[in-house]
């Protein structure tokens, strides 16, 4: 039975592993799963990449991936952390962006992050559309929020404070 195992099957199992800090997203659509290797004896190695170096969710995610592999009868399952190339929000699927929006978190822009000056240059901050009313009349409260991946904003139109999954 194990000989019929394919990376696609393992990938579909991993859709069940959610990001504990953004539970509306799974690790596949977040772009954390970098590769799945299956050995001759049915052993499985899943390579995952962290979003941020200090993201406390990584250990939880690794534990859950190992558990999912075990639940599906994989005898030798390993989870490996890879760092290169570094994770980017460009790897997030469009489906994931829509889910974030519906969850009330403004999604990161699609595509590669534009390179801007690393030092402050005045008012060059891109307006993030409000996930509730769609207005672009919003202000950045802080580039650092409740988790490493999010920033804090306020909508001047509907007066709703909201979070934004930062372009990274």
């Amino acid at each position, binding site marked *: 039975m194990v000989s019929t195992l394919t990376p696609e099957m393992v990938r579909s199992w991993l859709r069940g592993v959610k990001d504990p800090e953004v539970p509306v997203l799974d690790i596949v659509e977040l772009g954390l799963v970098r590769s799945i290797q299956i050995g001759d004896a049915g052993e499985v190695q899943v390579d995952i990449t962290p979003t*941020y170096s200090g993201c406390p969710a990584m250990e939880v995610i690794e534990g859950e991936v190992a558990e999912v592999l075990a639940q599906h009868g994989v005898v030798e399952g390993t989870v490996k952390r890879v*760092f290169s*190339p570094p994770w980017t929000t460009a790897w997030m699927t469009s489906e994931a962006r829509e889910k974030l929006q519906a969850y009330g978190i403004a999604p990161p822009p699609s595509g590669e992050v534009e390179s801007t000056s690393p030092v*402050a240059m005045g008012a060059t901050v891109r307006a993030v559309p409000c996930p509730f009313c769609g207005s672009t009349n919003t202000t950045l409260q802080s*580039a650092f929020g*409740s988790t490493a991946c999010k920033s804090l904003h306020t909508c001047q139109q509907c007066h709703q404070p909201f979070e934004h999954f930062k372009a990274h």
Partner: protein
Amino acid sequence: MNDLFEYLLRLGDDRLILGHRLSEWCGHGPVLEEDIALTNIALDLIGQANLFLGLAGEVEGAGRDADALAFLRTDVEFRNLQLTEIPCGDFGFTVARQFLFDAYSWHLLGALTSSQHDGLAGLAARSRKEVTYHLRHSSEWVLRLGDGTEESHRRVQDAFDAAWRYTGELFLPDAVDTNLLAQGIGADLPALKPIWDEMVTDVLGRATLDVPDVTPTAMNSRSGSHTEHLGHLLSEMQFLARSNPGAKW
């Protein structure tokens, strides 16, 4: 002496010690958003330290992991810059030190992304994305404090004047740097100094602050010379791990 192990300790220790210093602001930030920002940056730095020290342990091959290196070494075995260990002082000093370090770290990690050592290059690229956010944040505060009120200007200028003497060794290569540069693994520190100078001079100028007229002092942090502050920092950082050996949660 394993040069690569030493080099990775330097990268890890800078981030561990500065991350610990920033974590002291938890619950004491001037406003809630800044409390969250300082602790987010602390978390990034400690996360980076975990990666660099983890790789250092692998390179050393003596069975020490990141935790053993972080919690079971004494002050003279630490390789962090003195700039990272001196106390936070007021918010102005915290910002000034952070900006000087972020600008250094951003250029250094940028150079290391093309290291011939794949593991080091990967961690440098991973960390640099985070440092880009830190640098933008600390430079914004330099502008705001420098070009703010009379008091904020005076206090952040005092902070830069006090921090400046610790910046001399940032770009001073020793044998470890020279050997690793020759192998294509390490960064060319003297080549980074002019671009760091340019960035710092630009931001201080726009913040209406003066580049300090202070001669940096020789420090030898990379060989284990530290201020009296590091031992006190370690006693707080290490006591839990040392009094409960091998504890997990």
